[in-house]
């Protein structure tokens, strides 16, 4: 019968359709999983490099400590102090002696706001209309005049000085509080939060958990909005200090540059006051006596009572340990940060005794730099170089000790903007979406009130012109990460080749995947999935062996002068961020110039501390050849800019360094 045959045909047809659909679905899901993995890999690359840079920053801070110790020794030994590159101003700058409390006039001086200025004009005392005014102005990319900036900073400092180390606040069912994590200069994310969650007000309180600045390009605008909101609602807008609220970090991670660019005339003054303001930012917030909100985390020795009592403004950069007082002999001490700091007896002249004890300092470093991990116990945070890794047992113990229920912290970028760990006791909150790159991660904020579980809100900023399909965004993200990784590789090319060749006994130019991965991990110090990434970094032959020189083929460091020796070029390129900061710090009058003498002695100290084997005469020759010391001084920004990476297959010819 007709029905019989057509029925079985239909069955066969639908069975084939089912199979076909299944094939397509499996294929698609496989691809999707692949894309997700590639996205994660890219994020891991960005994060590893960021943490490695933080380690460099810590090493640099140790270098400054080393420098200061040398200074005092030189003072004692050498009568000809004019030769010393380390001027007294530098010492006070780094040691952070207290600036006398200046009055309004010192800040505002003779600054005039011209009639031609069409940016926002704030009216003191500030009200919520000023918040609106600022937001509207910044949306149109206007820049707030330095006069108003300084007024805001002056008032903010006064108010912050009255705040205790920890802000205690209460919620109620009708008054939830919103907590935001790292913003890092991403103004669009702040606007998005405000549009979704409302502006701060008495009925809509906020906690901003540190790292407002650095890396994004609107750190200044974010600070202004936050500070103005704080001045208008001092009891409902709470600010916690992050590890980036630190003048040393700002020098490396872009905020200092942003300020000096936007405020060519008054930038230095603004930076000076900001250095001070950072030290007055509260260490944390405690909500309903239940929730502790701090930027980094805790350690097994965290003492909240002590932290409530310390004078939080006593040191300027959390990165520099206080110079120890009255030690008898040189002793090597291994402290939490895992590096050795030599304690030496230093005669004090009174001001050093104002330094916090090392113990207090460590407490604060832990709060600002630690990360939670699944492993029990507490151990040094080796990827960042500061603070510690704390396990679920530490969390339980510390929370119980102070009768707290939860820890909310930030400090780590998470793909979904937040993450819960330690049995729900620790929440990581990160509010800068697309932090490393377009598509790298979402941002999030939470609303809490006592008695109810926290509510999470996620978002991701997407440029309207950038609504590309998922796979294209992942490609772009991945390319950016690989590019950054390659720049890292080229900056340590000499070391890498040496290690490769040590294992390449037959001098074939090839290594096994295992040998290559081992070399990469050990030289670069980055914990990455090398085997999976190998296809993106090197050429692999049909036997599965790696041609280890192939990764250096399409990238090189530009030689500023033809005759320069390669190892010197590579060294300067590799340490360019550190050198930039060093020169920046020596240049105490911010002129952009240092003398050849200062340059030479700084270079000598640098090479000895960093164990760099480069003949001093080489650097002299290079500086000379670059025609930089015409009048006995060097424009070090120009000097360093001449060292950059060229990617062969690139339309741009300057490297896209994100950390410069």
């Amino acid at each position: 019968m007709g029905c019989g045959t057509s029925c079985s045909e239909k069955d066969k047809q639908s069975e084939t359709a089912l199979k076909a659909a299944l094939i397509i679905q499996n294929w698609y899901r496989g691809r999707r999983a692949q894309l997700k993995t590639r996205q994660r890999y890219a994020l891991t690359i960005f994060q590893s490099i960021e943490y490695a840079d933080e380690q460099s920053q810590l090493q640099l801070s140790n270098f400054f400590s080393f420098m200061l110790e040398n200074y005092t020794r030189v003072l004692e030994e050498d009568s000809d102090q004019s030769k010393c590159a380390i001027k007294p101003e530098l010492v006070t700058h780094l040691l952070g002696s207290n600036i006398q409390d200046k009055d309004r006039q010192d800040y505002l001086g003779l600054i005039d706001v011209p009639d031609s200025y069409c940016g926002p004009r704030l009216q003191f005392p500030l009200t919520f209309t000023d918040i609106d005014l600022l937001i509207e102005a910044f949306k149109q990319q206007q820049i707030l005049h330095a006069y108003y900036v300084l007024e805001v900073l002056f008032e903010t400092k006064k108010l912050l000085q009255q705040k205790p180390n920890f802000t205690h606040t209460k919620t109620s069912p009708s008054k939830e509080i919103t907590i935001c994590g790292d913003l890092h200069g991403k103004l669009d994310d702040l606007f998005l939060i405000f549009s979704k969650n409302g502006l701060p007000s008495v009925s809509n309180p906020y906690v901003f958990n540190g790292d407002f600045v650095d890396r994004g390009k609107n750190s200044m605008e974010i600070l202004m909005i936050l500070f103005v909101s704080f001045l208008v609602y001092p009891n409902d807008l709470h600010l916690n200090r992050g590890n980036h609220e630190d003048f040393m970090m700002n020098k490396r991670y872009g905020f200092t540059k942003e300020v000096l660019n936007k405020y060519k005339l008054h930038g230095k003054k603004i930076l000076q006051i900001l250095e001070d303001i950072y030290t007055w930012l509260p260490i944390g917030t405690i909500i309903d006596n239940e929730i502790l909100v701090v930027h980094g985390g805790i350690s097994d020795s965290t003492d909240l009572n002590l932290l409530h009592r310390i004078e939080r403004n006593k040191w300027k950069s959390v990165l520099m340990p206080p110079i120890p007082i009255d030690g008898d002999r040189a002793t090597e001490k291994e402290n939490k940060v895992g590096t050795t700091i030599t304690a030496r007896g230093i005669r004090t002249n009174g001001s050093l005794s104002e330094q916090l004890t090392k113990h207090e300092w460590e407490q604060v470093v832990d709060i600002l730099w630690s990360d939670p991990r699944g492993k029990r116990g507490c151990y040094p945070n080796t990827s960042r170089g500061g603070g510690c890794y704390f396990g679920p047992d530490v969390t339980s113990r510390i929370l119980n000790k102070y009768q707290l229920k939860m820890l909310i912290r930030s400090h780590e970028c998470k793909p979904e903007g937040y993450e819960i760990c330690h049995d729900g006791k620790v929440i990581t909150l990160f509010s800068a979406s697309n932090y490393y790159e377009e598509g790298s991660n979402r941002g999030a904020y939470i609303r809490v009130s006592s008695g109810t579980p926290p509510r999470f809100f996620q978002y991701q900023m997407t440029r309207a012109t950038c609504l590309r399909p998922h796979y294209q965004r992942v490609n772009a993200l991945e390319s950016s990460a690989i590019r950054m990784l390659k720049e890292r590789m080229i900056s340590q090319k000499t070391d890498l080749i040496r290690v490769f060749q040590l294992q390449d006994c037959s001098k074939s130019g090839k290594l096994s995947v295992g040998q290559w991965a081992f070399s990469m991990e050990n030289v670069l110090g980055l914990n990455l999935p090398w085997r999976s990434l190998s296809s993106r970094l090197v050429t692999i032959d049909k036997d599965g062996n790696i041609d280890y020189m192939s990764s250096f083929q399409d990238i090189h460091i530009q030689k500023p002068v033809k005759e320069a020796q390669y190892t010197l070029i590579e060294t300067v390129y590799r340490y360019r961020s550190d050198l930039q900061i060093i020169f920046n710090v020596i240049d105490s009058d911010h002129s952009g110039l240092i003398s050849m003498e200062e340059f030479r002695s700084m270079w000598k100290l640098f090479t000895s501390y960093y164990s760099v084997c480069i003949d001093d005469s080489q650097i002299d020759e290079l500086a000379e050849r670059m025609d930089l010391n015409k009048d006995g001084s060097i424009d070090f920004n120009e000097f360093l800019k001449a060292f950059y990476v060229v990617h062969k297959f690139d339309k741009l010819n300057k490297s896209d360094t994100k950390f410069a």
Partner: protein
Amino acid sequence: MADDRSREGTETAVAEFHKKIKEAFEVFDHESNNTVDVEEEEPTGYIRFEKFLPVMTEVLLERRYRPIPEDILLRAFEVLDPAKRGFLSKEELIKYMTEEGEPFSQEEMEEMLSAAVDPESNSIHFKDYITMMVIDEN
């Protein structure tokens, strides 16, 4: 002798696979406690590394889960297009993907459409789509 060598070869291969699996696992193990989250319905919601490693090693050794060849994928689409137009309408694709086989979630469907649909005709020219995806993969 040949047996020994091949066994040795397999052992090295296994060791290398183990390292590769561990590396990849660690990327997703953000808490560094040897577990990763699972998106499916699992009693605990996690997979432990010790459980994952042997399963994955076998998968790699036996070369399972190889990518689906382009021509098979094309044939699958062609089956769903019996009229041989060379394309599927957006509605048709949605119907098949969300009603047949192991149905897509709404998120998966939206994601696939965002790359596959030609906005002018509101249809999926699957041959072009496949070519585009395959190029990207390589």
